């Protein structure tokens, strides 16, 4: 069970890495606009010859 000591340290390090990533993402402005990314993923790439069927 002594391995738990090491395991907890490692898991804390991993968790802190994620925390740092969170802080970085907030600072880089990803959370400024939460509405448009939801719509943006729905765009289709259309070629000039429009053969794709539209719903």
């Amino acid at each position, binding site marked *: 069970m002594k391995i*738990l*000591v090491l395991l*907890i340290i490692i898991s*804390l390090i991993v*968790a802190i890495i994620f*925390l740092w990533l*969170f*802080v970085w993402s*907030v*600072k880089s*402005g990803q*959370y*400024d*606009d*939460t*509405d*448009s990314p939801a*719509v*943006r993923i*729905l*765009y*289709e790439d*259309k070629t*000039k010859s*429009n053969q794709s069927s*539209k*719903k």
Partner: protein
Amino acid sequence: MDTIPASTQIACYHCGDDVQIDGISIDEKSFCCHGCKTVFELLDKNDLCDYYSLEDNPGNQLSHFFSEKYNYLDTEEIADLLLDFKSEKFHKVTFRIPTIHCSSCIWLLENLTRFDEGIINSQINFSKKRLSVNFEPKVTNLKNIVDLLCKLGYEPEISLNQNKEDTRNHSSINLIKLGIAGFVFGNIMLLSFPEYLGIDPESIFTDYFAYINLALSLPILFYCASEFYLSAFGALSKKVLNIDLPITIGIAALFLRSTFEILTESGPGYLDSLAGLVFFLLIGRWFQSKTYEGLSFDRNFKSYFPLAVTRVSDTQRESVLVEKLVVNDVIFVRNEEILPCDSILMSNEAQVDYSFVTGESLPVKVLKDEILYAGGRIKGQAIQASVTKAVSKSYLTQLWNNPALEKTKEQDGEKLIDRISQYFTPLVLGIALLAGIYWTYVDSSQIVFVLSSVLIIACPCALALATPFTLGSVLNLLGGHQFYLKNTAIIEKLWKVDHLIFDKTGTITSKSNNVVIFQGNPLSDRENQWLSSLTQNSTHPLSQHIHDHLIDYTTVETSIKFKEQSGAGLIGTINGHEVKIGSASFIGVTNQEEKNGSVAFVSIDGEIKGYFSVQNHYRKGLKEMINGLKNNYNFTLLSGDNDSELQNLTRIFPQNANFHFKQSPEQKLNHVKSIQENDTVVMIGDGLNDAGALGASDVGISVAENISSFTPASEAIILGKQLVNLSDFFRLIRQSKKIIIIGFTLSFLYNIVGISFAVAGYITPIFAAILMPLSSITVVAFSTLSIQFLGRKIRTNRL
């Protein structure tokens, strides 16, 4: 009342507005106007009709757009002011576009590259209603981009006042603190599990976990909770006890007690409660801090005036920045453009619409050599004028510089929670002291234990959450009904209000619907047709109202000899008949009695047929709203218009209401100040002429017909058609105070239970860890759910 033949209710394929009988159509799609049809064709040509598949009728009706409007963007120095970034190959600009409102808008505006090859890409920030465009300066330029946006119905707001985003930093710091607090809270709880489950306290992991917890709690202590300490000490230095003080004491007690326990290995400490406390409080702050970034509550005259105007010199016309105008410059102002500064008219005459500035609903005729005031909108023919005062010195801007507005309104008037905390802190400290004294005699080894327990358990977590969640919910709810408050502090100010001041034109009257009645010998269809054709050619608002009233009579195809005598009337010859419409003197009417509203007499072939009277149309439901409000508030009406409506108004407002007409903006301001000596005042207005009054009042509410229109600086913005629900809104706001008080009571109950246990010495970490979240969740749930429930009583959408 005339009965108007009902028009078939087809909706325009582009913008959703009603299509009239003689609407325009392509391939079975109908459009309400040429503007919408043009946008559709533009999209079709560029293969962008997906715009219509994302939402129904997503388009915006084109506002008045003329190709000359943005000529000043060709001037490099002006264009440079607007650019975010400039290099040889790459320019970047950010526009504020108030008409962005749906996913189709996002889609279209991010596909701008399809229209113009010079545009590299474009990106929207939806909540702030901004569009960033990157473009190649050699291929296209700023004017092309702005013209394109206008053609699509997304005219950008270009003004002298460019607020760059500094609000972003503040909210991102809150998010970071919240994230760290949540991280620490979760991990400490995880590591405290052995305690909760009562597992072997002698194991080696006990100390190990305890020290890790201690280390984890440091960021919370020093970083996340710092705003509470700063606020508490800030208030203390002003000899005020606010709610952050007991919170700070609680945090200190928690941390010190836990450190002591961990270092002496006598217990696990209360760090989970500490982390939880800070986490919940930060959630409360975050919930309360929501603002409407897409709206602008702080517009001043600079946002209203145009950026540039055409200056005429001996040789040429050029666009110059409005700020650069000097006395004696000659400016050229076209139809629908706004005068940027006080000047003297050089053309023979001008029609100026001062409705936004003085509240007068009809245009004023100005003759050569008379003064024109800044802020007026030119109607009809373009004019030339000679500048008499620079922009910053004109009459209108002087109003904004009025010393009465200098004093910024106290941002945080005393909040309810702070009043409670004046008593709360001494009370808790008193109880702790008494408990300490008691235990000195009973078992003095327990003193520190009991003292710290009392301070820990009394920490007002739930108490501090009642207000943010209640007021935050109210803010969200009202926003859903299109009544946007600047922040939650306004709600507390509104609790104290007892006097409402209304503006008339545009506020309690609806600019769109005017009631047009014809009095006299009934006109034949043919005659109505002629009048419709005649009035179609004039830009005078009376003509336009009459034309709208006669919209169903198709206009004649044959040419009419049309002549407008501005300020007097219209005359034309149609099919051999002389048709005249205008003022009494123009038509030749003698001895007419006082008429309500504005009138236009009609004569055909010299025979006087009667008159059209155009009356103010009060918003539907206004009387009900006043009835709902009259028990709690006093009323005053300040109008820039004349008193022709006094009779109608006395029927709507209660007996003790005051009416004042022909008020200049300064007079309105002074009225507000005089009423303020006795009462707390809310001013409700819509135009620049209310700007002074709105600024001086305790709470100012601007009325806007649509979200993209200009509103003077105020604490709240309400959509025109929602104004009649004001009594419901105010009732909800009054009820929110009671909800908060009940929330306080609930948290006091928890406190009493907790403190009793603490004084008796029965507090354990588990007890604290359960009590705190339990009390917080109860209060939060109660506040949010009751506001949701009360909000259902607000009637939705009466049209």
